């Protein structure tokens, strides 16, 4: 029997994801650039009007999170990517196509999820790197910029959870389960994005571990197809 290689299949799935993402995937990246520029201009404005010491004092003692819009981009980006990938995949009973292709359904499902999480990850790395570049322009000491950068870590995690939760909500056709997923996703994202100071999550590893089950949420929701619900 002729065998199709996993590599060929994976490449085909990647091509499909590229078709879905290629035009609108850039929107969160553009917003991120805009928000980072806004943060840069804000700091620059404070330095110009009140001097560098005012900025340092504000950041060190008040720990003002003037870059909170980056959080919106990371969470919003996760939701955005999930919508781009899974609305066309799941609407009009199209999820049935996925379950009929002659490979174990986990392969296309986790390839798609992997692509989405990778794009969310790239967005996070872009935000992280961009923010580091902004901070380095003002020559902040390591003691200040490291906690500021670490503030972004739970937001990155929130973005990943937002992505997985949105994907699962889209795939889920049972309204009660859909609402439960919305609620659970909201609780997770709110918790991870809630902070009153820099680097508030000391034990982020444990929180990250608690988020791991979200990776399987889409598959669980998509299996509704096997219950005749899609």
């Amino acid at each position, binding site marked *: *029997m*002729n065998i*199709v290689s996993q590599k060929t299949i994976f*490449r*085909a799935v990647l091509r*499909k994801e590229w078709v879905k993402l290629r035009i609108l995937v850039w929107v969160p990246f553009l917003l991120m650039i805009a928000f980072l520029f806004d943060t840069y201009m804000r700091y620059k404005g404070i330095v110009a009007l009140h001097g560098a010491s005012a900025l340092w004092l504000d950041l060190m003692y008040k720990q003002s999170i003037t870059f909170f819009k980056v959080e919106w981009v990371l969470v919003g980006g996760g939701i955005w990517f999930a919508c781009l990938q899974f609305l*066309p995949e799941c609407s009009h009973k*199209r999820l*049935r196509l996925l379950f009929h292709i002659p490979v174990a359904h986990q392969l296309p499902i986790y390839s798609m999820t992997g692509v989405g999480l990778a794009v969310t990850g790239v967005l996070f790395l872009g935000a992280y790197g961009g923010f580091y570049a902004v901070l380095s322009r003002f020559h902040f000491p390591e003691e200040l910029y490291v906690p500021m950068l670490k503030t972004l870590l739970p937001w990155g995690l929130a973005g990943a959870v937002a992505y997985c939760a949105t994907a699962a909500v889209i795939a889920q056709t049972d309204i009660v389960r859909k609402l439960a997923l919305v609620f659970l996703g909201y609780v997770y994202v709110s918790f991870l994005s809630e902070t009153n100071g820099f680097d508030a999550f000391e034990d982020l590893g444990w929180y990250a571990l608690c988020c791991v089950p979200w990776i399987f949420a889409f598959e669980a929701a998509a299996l509704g*197809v096997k219950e005749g619900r899609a």
Partner: protein
Amino acid sequence: MNDLIVCQDLRFGYGKKEVLHGLNFTVEEGGIVGLLGRNGAGKSTTINILMGFLEQTSGKCSILGHPSYSIPPYARREIGLLHEGFIQYDFMSIEGIEKYYAAFYPQWNRDLYYDLVSRIKVPYSRKITRLSCGQRSQVTLGLILAQSPKLMILDDFSMGLDVGYRRLFLEFLRDYVDTYKTTVLLTSHVIQELDSFLDKILFIKEGEIIYDGTKEAFLSSFYAYTIPIEESKKILTCKEISNIEYGNKYAHIFGYTEKEAMQRRLHAFGVHERVINTLQADSLNLEDAFVGLMGRY
């Protein structure tokens, strides 16, 4: 002969409402089988069970020798499935979707796909979402044929297609089946073009198979007679009559009873002698017989 599909005492219900009441049928290798019934008869539910999108509440359902709810991937490769409404990844282009599916099927026949889609005369870079329903049906059929499947299951292939595209679809399918000896199970509620197309018919009504056999056998054993409406009221309890359809002045009675036997039954029910003596079996095509068996309402 090898049975590709076997359903034995297949039952299924949505909640407490049972919609399939013990279906029994087999689809043997070779030929085109039509699972025909009116809207809501249980055709799509049956297909959904066959394709593992639903699990039966009881009974047996196997496809290519595998339980339908757990068809392994290598067996799915042998099954070409047309989803109701020509569902496809319509965000992809005509050429893009061909490349996508080709990756999953080692025996993919690219030429066959392009032979079919070249006839709709649109650029291959066009997205499927921008095609008409008829054009989309050609693309979808092309994708199924290119798989070179052993068994094709076409769920309501006629949905949304005008008569031209329906005929085109069937013509291609017939040629393909004759060439590659593929087995086809199709469902439809439009019977018009299927008259000369099906090798075997399964009539499904309210979740039960009410006829399983060849079209010729059915048409040679199923009769229609026309009698005045007032006379038809006398035979409402006659068990030999499958269905009565009413017109303005005449009623059409349908059943498996030949003329002489029917005349005797009508006589027994006190139908006027003049009506009995002039009784003639009406000639039926498949669509007439379908309506006669299933009823108009």
